[in-house]
């Protein structure tokens, strides 16, 4: 679950940084851990962009593709490597992502980001090998197949902020560990209640980041939970729940509330002595993407049975039309970067296939709720909106790790 941005209704808008993709690249390989990690991330992203740009271009011959693959290799391996080719340019720094990661790992201790970095090493090497193969490809199809391999492994190496350990890649490490603490920032005990702006760290894990409530713009990419605590806005990392289990003075209040973002935000609202406009906004925004009620999903099952089963199957497994829940559906939705809004667009604009637009707004919202429930999204008290606004549903579709869900062998959760 991830919040893209939190808009403050007060005088200013603002963003807190767990991810630091926009930080300027540093050429030095001997900087702080944070600087090395940021430089590595920038190099990985530059390599990814280089391959993507080549894929999106319409070229007339193979040379531009081959050059793109080499450019991506250059930024991954760095100028000191045998794989570096000076005849094409290097879209990143001279050190290269591989060397940045190696420097980070060249240490006697084992902070919690080491596991992610080992994963990045492997994926990075694999991407370089794929790109070498892409350069030798016989025809565009083969090039694209190899380049796709490289993109896949690069994406895993770049990772995502909402997961930690090896699964989170570099974004995950920057969001959830001490790697994300910028040079010179105030560091406090992650198990203690935030008292001042700064970072809460416990055994190398980043638990929270606090900023003054008057802060200009908070980028909450990857935040699991956002709380207003006194004069501070505190963003808790996805790792915070796990870390707080190990805190010597476990505080019930500090532990994130389980359930959807909307449910959590609602729970905070209930606890808040005074309802701040910020928290109301958080609840509304969070609810827009993925909330639905159990009653909606149950009603949606009936609407689906009447209008959709003939093509999509009684178990959403797909017959003439594609599957709409489970592993196959979600794998392709994730690959294609589908959002809840896109799914809603297809459902409301194009479906039912032989009679599009024939359901009421209420029924379409119920079908959406049924699809989310079947894909193991947790229900909440906020209904799926019948009249979605333009800014709703930017949430990307994703596999749900919902402990109460019991998916069948195809990965479909039952609605009852």
């Amino acid at each position, binding site marked *: 679950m991830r919040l893209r941005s939190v808009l403050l209704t007060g005088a200013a808008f603002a963003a807190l940084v767990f991810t630091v993709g926009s930080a300027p690249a540093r050429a030095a390989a001997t900087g702080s851990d944070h600087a090395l990690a940021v430089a590595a991330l920038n190099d990985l992203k530059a390599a990814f962009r280089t391959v993507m740009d080549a894929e999106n271009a319409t070229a007339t011959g193979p040379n531009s593709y081959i050059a793109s693959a080499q450019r991506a290799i250059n930024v991954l391996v760095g100028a000191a490597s045998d794989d570096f080719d000076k005849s094409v340019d290097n879209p990143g720094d001279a050190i290269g992502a591989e060397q940045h990661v190696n420097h980070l790992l060249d240490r006697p201790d084992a902070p919690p980001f080491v596991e992610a970095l080992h994963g990045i090493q492997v994926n990075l090497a694999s991407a370089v090998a794929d790109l070498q193969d892409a350069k030798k490809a016989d025809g565009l*199809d083969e090039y*694209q*197949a190899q380049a796709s391999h490289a993109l896949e492994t690069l994406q895993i190496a770049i990772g995502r902020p909402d997961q930690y350990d090896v699964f989170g890649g570099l974004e995950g490490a920057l969001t959830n560990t001490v790697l994300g603490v910028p040079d010179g920032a105030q560091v406090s005990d992650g198990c203690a209640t935030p008292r001042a702006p700064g970072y809460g760290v416990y055994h190398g894990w980043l638990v929270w980041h606090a900023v003054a409530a008057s802060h200009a713009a908070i980028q909450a990419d990857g935040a699991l939970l956002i709380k207003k605590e006194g004069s501070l806005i505190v963003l808790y990392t996805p790792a915070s729940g796990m870390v707080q289990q190990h805190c010597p003075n476990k505080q019930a209040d500090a532990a994130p509330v389980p359930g959807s973002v909307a449910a959590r935000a609602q729970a905070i609202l209930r606890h808040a002595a005074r309802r701040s406009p910020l928290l109301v906004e958080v609840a509304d925004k969070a609810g827009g993407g993925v909330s639905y009620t159990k009653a909606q999903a149950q009603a949606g099952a009936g609407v689906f049975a009447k209008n959709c089963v003939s093509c999509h199957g009684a178990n959403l497994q797909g017959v*003439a*039309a594609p599957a709409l829940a489970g592993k196959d559906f979600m794998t392709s939705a994730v690959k294609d970067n589908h959002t809840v809004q896109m799914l809603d667009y297809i459902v409301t604009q194009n479906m039912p296939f032989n*009679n599009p637009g024939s359901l009421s707004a209420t029924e379409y919202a119920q079908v959406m709720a049924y699809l989310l429930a079947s894909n193991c999204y947790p229900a909440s008290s906020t209904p799926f909106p019948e009249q979605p606004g333009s800014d709703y549903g930017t949430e990307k579709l994703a596999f749900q790790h919902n402990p109460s869900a019991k998916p069948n062998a195809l990965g479909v959760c039952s609605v009852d």
Partner: protein
Amino acid sequence: MAFDRRKTGRQLSAVLCAGIAGAALTFGLGSVAQAASSSSAATPSIDDFTRTQSDNSNWIINAKNYDNSRYVDLDQITPANVSQLKPVWSFQISDNSPIESAPIIWNDTAYITSAHDHVYAIDVKTGKQKWEFSDNPHVISFAANRGVALLDGNVYIGTLDGHLIALNAETGQKVFDVVAVADTSNSFFSQAPMPYRNAAGRTLLLENVSNGDWGGIGEVSAFDPKTGKKVWAWQTIPGPGQKGHDTWPGDSWKRGGASVWTQMALDPKTGMLYGNVGNPSPDFNDTIRKGSDLYTDSLVALDISGDKPKLVWHYQFLRNDTHDWDPVMPPLLFTAKFNGRSTQLVATGDKASNFWLLNAQTGKLVERLAVAMQLNQDQKPSLAGNVACPNTNGGVEYNGGSYDPKTNMIYLPSSNECGFYRANKNVLYISGQFYLGGAFPKFVGPNTGQMNAIDMSTGVFAWRNPDKHPMIGGALSTSSGLVFSGKVMGDFVAYDAQSGKELWSYDTGSSILAPPVAFERDGQEFVAVASGTAGNQLLPDTPASNKGSFLTMFALAK
């Protein structure tokens, strides 16, 4: 995506018991007499594809011959005795789905595919399964497969996730499996591959990508049957610098659609290939692609005898289409005495309910005929919506018709369906989803059809037989004067080729969306057709469930 992600473990291993194999072999030898040297082999050789019309014991191209005539020189079943036609066996297709493929018959084995790319090898004599290949790839938007090709010991299939797969024809085991499309998020295969040998003696598999309504660009392509590697491709939308590129404003050509959906016609003597190019995308909203959008909704003639295909001529049926009214009928290629002059003609139909007859050498229009209901065809879909006929299922559909050289007639099923079309204000490209700029139209009736006979000496109807439901099952004509076709409601029927009278029917219990085939075995004539769920052809009165999917084999009662 990746080559190596395919799950081979799901594939059912072949079960080929010694008894059946032995029986099959002798069965095959029985028909050697009139066929060519390779007929005892597991599959045809490339030479067999140029003598299909004279080989009555096999059926190796989707529409019988390279000319797509779907005509056989068989006369045991006649208008006089067709009432005695009975099912010999019925093979249940385990993947109950819309079945759109004609079986390929080679010696003792029939090969049929299901919508999710299962391939079934069936003993022709007993109707028992020899092996099944279960693929179950990811479905992009709708599941359909229109058959396999047999060549050099292999069975070839193009799949819903853009793979080209070769299977061992005797065991069903994979020989190779390659990703053969450029963008797996919006491209797949639905048509049957077609083997062809060019002037230089190189054997190729022709197979075209299906990506037209998903924002891809169509291609006519040829693959190496040994490796699955692409040998050449001809893009159906001219790129920058090519003639016709200026018929697309800005970058609209990059997601312009124009897939070649169905079997192309081929003249093996000249290497001329005749293919129908599909509609432009976004389908229902032309605001970003005003222009003639070449070569959408066109018949193109390509010279493929050499190393690279060359466009010889094109004829555009519909300029700037906003209704998904593309020509999807496999073109018919034949020589007929039209208006007293013997001419090589190419005939096709489109989803706008037109039948087109062109000079095959020059591409000039010879005749045009409306073969089903047409209404408001000059009105583009509005944001509020408007009615036009046909809808996207009407007119002449993907199975097309049959040309009978004996009667000099084309037998062509067609559908009267109308739709409420609506355009979207915003055209949104979502990777892996329909790129429509609107929605597929609502059904507004009348949902009827007819079987037409069009006289190829005059270009006018010889007879028309109306039907209560749309007709999309294609047509098969036989030299005895019969025309066979299947119906969406499940009836497999035979018409008198001269009068159009319905002479016989049999209820298969499920929807027929596939064309029939006929062949001869041990002196007996067989007719076969597949049936399954209604899929996109679902009508308001189609039964909610069917009896299952089947390949049913018919012969005269002995």
